[in-house]
């Protein structure tokens, strides 16, 4: 038997095999405990915390216990943790330089969790993307758009961009812009629009609908009719009002340009 073969066989002594088995058991049991503990903690606090806080707490508890189990397993195998930590420190610096973007995303994610411009379940608009927030993760925010696409936006982008939270306040103003022939009587148009708003059950009576003349041109006028609605009724009311306006204007002979 060559020296190499003897050296390799020497690694698999009974004692080392036992240590390997113990380490595997510690890691396995640790992961199971991590899963059970994270679920239990979330069940206890879920009535006091929202969906996002529950998710962060579950992951924090899981990874802390899993890390402790991993360190214990490594210790069982005879690794010197002090040396490991030292090596990890050097490795972190090297990895940090190589992954600045990822580090920036992580830091941005922490800022998002602290500032809370939105929470899981809110509908937000970033750039041209509008969707429901599914999760706020370490590196990115996940959205589900209304046409059911899964969109991943890096946290750094979210922090640097202008963001609109469409779910923050309970009511929203719906602006309807209409371009009409300059021959129409403003008072008649205003009266008709107010009647249409009153007939729409989801238009709030107050704040009262507002009629604004945005501009006049030689043969046209540009008006804005604003109504307030509950945020969940926004798309439905927008659709319904445009249809009602079209019907009413056609019946009265008012021309839209």
């Amino acid at each position, binding site marked *: 038997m060559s020296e190499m073969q003897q050296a390799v066989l020497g690694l698999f002594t009974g004692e080392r095999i036992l240590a390997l088995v113990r380490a595997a058991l510690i890691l396995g049991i640790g992961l199971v405990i991590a899963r059970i503990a994270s679920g239990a903690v979330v069940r206890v606090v879920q009535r006091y915390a929202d969906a996002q806080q529950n998710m962060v707490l579950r992951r924090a508890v899981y990874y802390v216990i899993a890390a402790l189990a991993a360190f214990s397993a490594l210790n069982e195998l005879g690794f010197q943790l002090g040396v490991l930590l030292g090596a990890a420190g050097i490795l972190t610096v090297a990895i940090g330089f190589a992954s600045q973007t990822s580090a920036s995303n992580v830091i941005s994610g922490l800022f998002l969790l602290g500032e809370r411009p939105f929470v899981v379940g809110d509908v937000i608009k970033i750039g041209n993307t509008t969707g429901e927030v599914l999760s706020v993760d370490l590196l990115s925010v996940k959205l589900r758009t209304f046409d059911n696409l899964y969109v991943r936006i890096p946290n750094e982008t979210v922090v640097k961009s202008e963001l609109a939270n469409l779910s923050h306040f*309970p009511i929203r*103003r719906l602006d309807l812009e209409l371009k009409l022939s300059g021959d129409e009587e403003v008072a008649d148009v205003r009266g008709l629009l107010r009647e249409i708003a009153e007939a729409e*059950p989801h238009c709030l*009576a*107050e704040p009262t*609908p*507002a009629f*604004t003349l945005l501009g006049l041109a030689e043969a046209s006028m540009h008006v804005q009719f*604003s109504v307030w609605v509950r945020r969940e009724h926004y798309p439905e009311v927008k659709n319904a009002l445009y249809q009602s306006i079209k019907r009413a204007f056609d019946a009265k002979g008012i021309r839209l340009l």
Partner: protein
Amino acid sequence: MSITSPSWWGTFEFVQGEARRWSIGPLRMTLQRCTNEWRVCHERVGRSDHAFEVGASAPAVGSGENVARFLTRELANTVRVLPALADRAVIVRPDTALYILPRQELTLYLASPLWLCLELGVPASTVWDHPIELPSEIWFGRATREGELGYASRSHASAALHDVVPLPHRATTPVLLRNRSSALLTIDRINLPVAVLSLYAAPGGQLWTQGVTMELQEDQRTVALHLDRHAPASVPGLEWLRGPRAGAESNLLVRAWDALISTVRSEVI
């Protein structure tokens, strides 16, 4: 609960297959007892404020958008038809703005819309709960960021009991407004917390709630809201009909004055 008449509420017995109709204000509701189910159909028609029809014979309920079917194995053929107050605050807007002089008080009688509820089964559970007249929703608060959603209601806001015009689909609440401050109190809308009020029936079939006192404090910023514990003494013969939808934490609540009496200006930019 004893049933007062004339009234549109009470316990009604049906035979298998029978359909009966209630017409109250703009609401027409038809109820039919079928095998293992109850069918309810409703529609809103032109307003008829005073007249109402109770349990008249009606054609069978078909199918459609406004039809609800409640399936049950129970053999009981009775249903309870009950009035209920709104499930949210009602923002009452007097027809004209009101002013209460400093250190003065006045009782106004404000009307709020009613809901029609159906209770089935043993123990009775509410299976149908609809407004008789479809109220407009309204935002009430200092700004569009803070406030609450309620229902809008117009009222004559009678200052004398004999001026109150009772309607079968509205309940009347006596509201004592007390101005303890040294400034003129302007009122163009009042937030009436009807969800925490009880309902009482008068012998003539009119519906009332207990009284509410709103007292503007000297700082002109807070209002003490006090709910009476019993039916209004000024209306004789009232019988308790049903309790509040939601429980009030106490009979005395202190709110900011603009949470009870306010106006929101719409910004247009």
